[in-house]
C-alpha cells in the first residue's frame, strides 16, 4: 500500500502520524482515500472548483516531482509526499 508522508501542518488531522498507509493507484485515489481515513485532509490538498491539486501544492512520488499531479500513477510500495511547490529562477 502506498505510504503518504503527511506535511507537518496536516499532522493534527492524522493523530500526529508522520506517515500513513493509504490505498490508491493514482494520486487522486490516494487523496480521496486519505480523506476517508482522516477527514479534513482533502481540503488542504485539493481544489474542488478546479478539480485539481491546490495551487502551490507539489506532489512528489518516489523522489520525483510529478508533472501529472492527480493523474500520477503510484505503485504498491510508492512514497507520496505533498510539499509546497518551489519556483526556479
Amino acid at each position: 500500500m502506498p505510504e503518504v508522508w503527511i506535511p507537518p501542518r496536516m499532522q493534527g488531522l492524522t493523530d500526529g502520524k508522520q506517515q500513513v498507509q493509504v490505498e490508491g493507484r493514482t494520486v487522486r485515489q490516494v487523496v480521496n482515500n486519505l480523506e476517508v481515513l482522516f477527514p479534513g485532509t482533502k481540503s488542504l490538498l485539493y481544489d474542488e472548483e478546479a478539480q485539481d491539486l491546490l495551487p502551490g501544492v507539489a506532489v512528489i512520488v518516489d523522489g520525483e516531482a510529478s508533472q501529472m499531479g492527480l493523474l500520477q500513477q503510484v505503485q504498491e510500495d510508492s512514497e507520496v509526499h505533498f510539499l509546497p511547490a518551489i519556483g526556479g529562477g
Partner: protein
Amino acid sequence: MLDYKPNVVLSNQEFNAVGSRPIRHDGADKVTGKALYSADIRPPGLLYAKMLRSPHAHARIKSIDASRALALPGVHAVVTSDDLAKPSGFIVDQAERALNNARFTSNNVLAEDKALYRGHAVAAVAADNWHLAEQALSLIDVDYEVLPAVFDAGEAMKDGSPLVHERLANQQNGSRGGGIRSNDDNEKSTNVSDHCEFRIGDIESGFKDADVIVEKEVSTVAVHQGYIEPHSATAMWHSDGNVTVWSSSQGHFSVQETTALMLDIPVSKVRAIPMEIGGGFGGKLTSYLEPVAAALAKKAGKPVKVAMSRTEVFEGTGPTSGTNIRVKLGATKDGKFVAAEARLVFEAGAYPGSPVTGGAACMFAPYDIPNAYIEGYDVVVNRPKTAAYRAPGAPAAAFCMETAIDELSEKLDMDPVEFRLLNSAKEGTRRASGPLMPPVGFVETLEAVKNHPHYKAPLGGPNRGRGVASGYWTNYSGPSNAVATVNADGTVNLVEGSPDIGGTRATAAQHAAEVLGIPVEDVSPLVADTASIGYTSNTGGSGVTFKTGWACYEAALDVKRQMIGRAAKIWEVPEDDVEYVDGVLQHTSDPELRMTFSQLAARQNTTGGPIVGSAGVNPGGAGPALGVHLVDVEVDSETGKVEIVRYTVFQDAGKAIHPSYVEGQMQGGAVQGIGWALNEEYFVNDQGQMLNSSFLDYRMPTSLDLPMIDTVIVEVANPSHPYGVRGVGEVPIVPPMAAIANAIHGALGVRIDQLPMNPGRVLESLWGNNGSNGSGR
C-alpha cells in the same frame, strides 16, 4: 589562454553532437550588433511611454489627476490601475500550474489603492517621444496620504508594526504565500504571509546524541540580478481586436497570460513575440511593462513602447530577499550529523512570495541528516516585490549552513571536505523535506575537489585563506515542445519555444543532431512566438536543456521514423529492413540500398510530402544539481578589501550537452555569488529610498576584479533523461558566499555573518565589532 582542468566524465555513453562545443547559431548576430533586443522594435507610428513612480515607501493613493498631462500637445494617453482588470485576490492557478496571485500581480504593475514601495508604478503616459513623456509625468497630480512604513522582516513580524496589507491571508505551507482574506475571515492581520515547515525524525533525541553542537545566525540584504538589458515592452493592437506584444522575457507564454489577465481578454487574443534577452537570472520571469504598453496602445490607438531606466530597474523590479537565518547543527565526535534545525525569515517585498520555501527545502539537502526540522517565514515589507534570482532562496540558506559546517568541522578538527564526504547525500538519502534523493553525483564532485591541484596547493602568502562550500538546487522541468522540418538541402529547421539565455538554441540543436546523425550546424534552431509554437513553460529552474532538449530529441525521433518509412517506400522493402545509422539510411542486408539524410531530404516531396517531426512533452525526473566551490582569498588587513586569488567550481552536470556553456554557467554563477558576497546590496535609507540605484554605485564585479574562474565538470548522468542531462544554470550561485566567508575566516581567523563582506564589515570584524557569534541585523 584558458587552462581548464580535465573534466571528470563518469557517464558511459558515446556521443557525436552531444558533448561537442559548436559555435552558437545566434552568436554572429549578437557579436556584430544585428540581433534584435526588446528595445529595437519600432512599428510605424510608435509612441513612447514612461512610468510615474511613487516617491513614498507606503502611501494611500487618494486621487490621480492626469488632466494637465493629457492637455500637453503630443501626449496621447495616460493609464492607471483603473485601466487594468481587477482579478481575484486569491491564489489562482493561472495556467499550466503557473501559480499566481493575480490581483497582486496587477497591483504591482500599477498600484491600486496604495503605493507599497518607493518606485512603485502608479501611472504611465504615452507621448510622441521620450522627452514629452517625461515632461508629462510631472503634470500628473497624485494626492498621497503618507503612511508609516516597515523595511525589515524582523520589524514587520512584531506586533504593532505597520501593516503592508490590511487583509493579508496567512497561507500555511503555500509556496508563494498569501492572498487577500475573505470578508468573513476575521483573523488578526499580519505581515507574515506564509509559514512552511519540514520535519524528519526527532530532533530532540538527535541533539541528545550530539557530541558537538554549532549554532549560528546570519543575515543578508537584498541584491539584484543585475541583468544588462533593462526591461522594455512594445504593444500594437490590430484591427481584429488582437494585440501583439514584443519584449524580452524568460517566458513569452507567461507574458501572454499576464497581459491577457490584466486586460481581461482571452490568451488567444495576445501574441507575445520573444526578443533576444540581455540577461534574466530569474528577474525576467515577471511581467512589469507588457500590460501597461498594451493598455496605453489601446487607449492611444497607436503602438506604444515603454522602457525602464537602470534606476527604474533597481527601484521598480524585484531583487531577491533580505534574510535572517538561524541554524543549529549537531554531530558525533567522529563527524556524523545527528540533528539539525533551522529557522529562515525572508523578506518578500511588497507582496507575498519570497523564495523562503526554496531556501528551506534546499538548506540541508546535500547531507544525510537523520533528524531535522526547518521552518520558514514569508514576510511582506515596504520594499520592491522580490523576484526569482538563480536558485531562489538557496544561496542565503547555504551561506548559513555551509559556514556553520565550517565551524563544525573546525571544532571536530576535521577536513571540511572529508566532513562533507562523510555526510554526503547519495541516491536514497532521506532529505529533510521528506522525499528520497534520486541519483546524484555529490560524492564524485567532492572526490574531484580532493583530487584537484587547487585543493593541495600552498596558499602562497600571508593574510590568505582557503574556503570550501557546497550547494544544492532542485532543478525543474515543465511542458515544452518542438517542431523539426526537413529542408530539401538536408538541413533541419528546429522550432521551439524557450527563450535562449544560456546557449540553449545550441543545446536544442545538439539533441536533434545527435538523433539524426547530422552536423549541429545543419540544424537551425528558432525560438518561436506564442502563435507559432505550442505552450512552453518558462526558461527557468535550470530546465530548458532538460525539457526542451527532450522535446527536440523526440521531434527528431519522429523525423527519423518518417525517413525510415520513406526509404522503405522508395526501395519497396519492409520498414523493419531499413536501419538508420549516423545520418545514413541503409538496407539491413543489401549494401546497394543506401541513402544519406540529404539525398532522401531532396526526395521528400515526391515520396509523400514534407517531413515534419513534432513532439510535446512534460517530462519528470529533472534530477537535482550539486556543486562545490573552492576559493582562495587575500585580505588587506588595513583596508579590509578581499581579493579573490583563485577560484575553482566543481559541479555534477549530468551529461554536459555543450561543455562550454556549462562552464559558462558555472563561471557566471560563481561571479554573481562573488558580487553578492563582497559588494552588492540595496543601500536603503530610513525612507525606503535606494541610494545606490546605478551601476556606478551598485558595485558588481567586473573582469578586472577577478581571476579566471576554473571549472571542473563532473558528469554523473541523470538516468531520467535520454542523454543524462541535469540542469546546471542555478546551483553555481549557491556556494560562493559561504565559500568566501570560510576563506576569510581562514585568512583572518574571524567569521563574518552578514553580507556583503565589504571592506567596512571586514574591518569591523577585525576590530571586534562583529565577532564570531554574529550580530544579526
